[in-house]
């Protein structure tokens, strides 16, 4: 179930569909790594929540993207091929939109436990439990230990 309360959501159904499509284009699902794409319902809900405040900026840009799709290809963005969608998104005219959506998409995606587990992190918050790290090879310090002190020595001038 979506975490976004309908009355708080400034994006129309069409805009949400478009945003979800873009999220999946930016970070698609991967069978190789066994992870969902950013268009996964739970992840997309978090994206939507994070961009509520950006609606005044993003809504006109989404409208421009649709208009560009229709101008160049005829059908709307969602009906285009993957290649055409990607090409349109990469167009310089959509640079600002892309910056915002990359930030929102990557932020929501890389705080999802299913995703974090595949990069060697916990699927829960860092606390409690933490992480294990190795001590490392302390013998590397031997040549430094052998070095003579090299700080500058100064005459004592202790105040009274």
């Amino acid at each position: 179930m979506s975490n976004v309360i309908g009355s708080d959501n400034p994006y129309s159904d069409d805009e949400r569909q478009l945003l979800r499509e873009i999220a999946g284009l930016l970070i698609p699902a991967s069978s190789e790594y066994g992870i969902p794409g950013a268009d996964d319902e739970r992840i997309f809900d978090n994206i939507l929540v994070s961009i509520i405040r950006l609606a005044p900026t993003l809504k006109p840009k989404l409208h421009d993207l649709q208009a560009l799709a229709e101008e160049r290809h005829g059908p709307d963005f969602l009906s285009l091929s993957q290649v055409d969608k990607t090409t349109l998104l990469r167009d310089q005219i959509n640079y600002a939109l892309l910056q915002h959506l990359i930030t929102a998409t990557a932020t929501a995606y890389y705080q999802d436990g299913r995703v974090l587990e595949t990069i060697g992190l916990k699927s829960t918050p860092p606390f409690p439990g933490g992480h294990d790290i190795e001590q490392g090879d302390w013998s590397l310090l031997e040549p430094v230990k052998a070095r003579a002190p090299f700080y500058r020595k100064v005459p004592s001038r202790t105040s009274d």
Partner: protein
Amino acid sequence: MADDHVDVLIIGAGASGAAIAWSLADTRMHIVCMEQGDWTNPSEYPSAHMDWESRAAGEFSFDPNARGRVTDYPVNNDDSPIAVANFNGVGGGTVLYAGHFPRFHPGDFCVKTLDGVADDWPIDYETLEPYYDENDRMMGVSGLAGDPAYPPKPAIMPPLPLGKSGEKLAQGFNAKGWHWWPSDSAVATEPYDGRDKCINLSACTYGCAQGAKASTDITYWPHAIRAGVELRTRCRVREITVNDEGMASGAIYYDADGNEQRINAEVVIVACNGVGTPRLLLNSKSTLFPDGLANSSGLVGKNLMFHPYSQIYGTFPDELDGVRGPQDSIWSQEFYETDLSRGFVRGFTYECIRGHAPIGTAVNNMISGRVAWGEDHHRTYREVVNHVTGMVAICEDLPEEHNTVTLDPDLKDTDGIPAPKLNYTLSDNSKDMLDFSIARAAEVLTAAGATNIESSAPIAGGGWHLMGTARMGTDSATSVVNEWGRCHDVKNLFIVDGSIFVTGAGVNPTRTIQALALYVADNMKQRLANLFD
């Protein structure tokens, strides 16, 4: 509050306010500390939540303007390439610091004598050494004795683990034949004084939910409060008041509801950091002190020093620690002491950083184009995440009078108190040092096997260290406080934070700030009978 009269009023409950409160507690005087912020509940720290990186960029950002809590005051950084970083609450900046905890070196107290620049301090390393030791015991410092970059100093707990990242960087330093050593860190590696040991949460700089990092809300304050010090939160001091004799008489402050209140005190101690302290003194104008309190020298707010930071990172084929582990690992002070053949005077410390967090890695690299979006995203992301490590260089900034903290004519906090405005420029010496630090770090990373080395300087949001704006000295014409922290102009007013630094050294300042606070406290206690003479 009709008879709110105390012996000692301390303003600010951060690194230095906590230390001096604890030290003065054994005088049995009535001591009140006023803090504009709140206690922080550790369960609120980002690392206790899945969205910790988002919280770290918001309510726990070290940028007060981004954080924007009602307990924060805004800072005008428009005329500075480096913006102030702080935290307003019990523990102050120690709540959000990394805990990287070096001492100053003996030579840092006499740069005029050694290098002919800036000024010497009126005290030396030997004077502060017992207070460093005392502070180390109170904060709990992990590290390893025997660092050839320093005079002998104790190590209370074992050092933090090298991990894969520290080991990789150590190999690079060794290949160059350059110094490195496990960092002294205010992160407990063993249970210590009621705190548990580090469990490698990774988000040290956004508050330690484990309580392993020594922020003063969990080190000094519990001891100080048990000893009788009263800590009042949500008390924002507007000005220090003076009597007809020119002595500090207390303060006017706003309570949590925004009501104006007054407190009277026999002694006032300011511990508000290198920006908050000059702001308060400049806001404390009166007939006797028309240019701000304790400012007959005209030096309150001048000589602002940061530590300009460079950052240098490389990507390695092997998997490293990434975000796992405390931020601290090792440091290098190969280039700490002056060598004029490098093209600048003074030097810097490399503070090695284990790695980057997953969201930051994705966002920064997707925007730069290094990590793809689309079908190739997962492969390219995995080439970077947990494969990057590197370092920052903490460069010594020399005092210059034109680098200032003044009062902004328009900007105010939520209680209407004028906010600070910075005017700061990087010196040519600092620029040369930053360039040099980047070039040498790249050599280390290359020697360790890194590719794709990236760097930048200065770190624009990296104004963590705020120093020099109420400097210490024996001459009232060229300094604000004397050699034991008492204001030349107001004999019952003391300053104990980084603003009294004469020079900034090339290391994180908190350990020295706290040692100075303990030193000032000890001097006050020794002089109680004639403190105001």
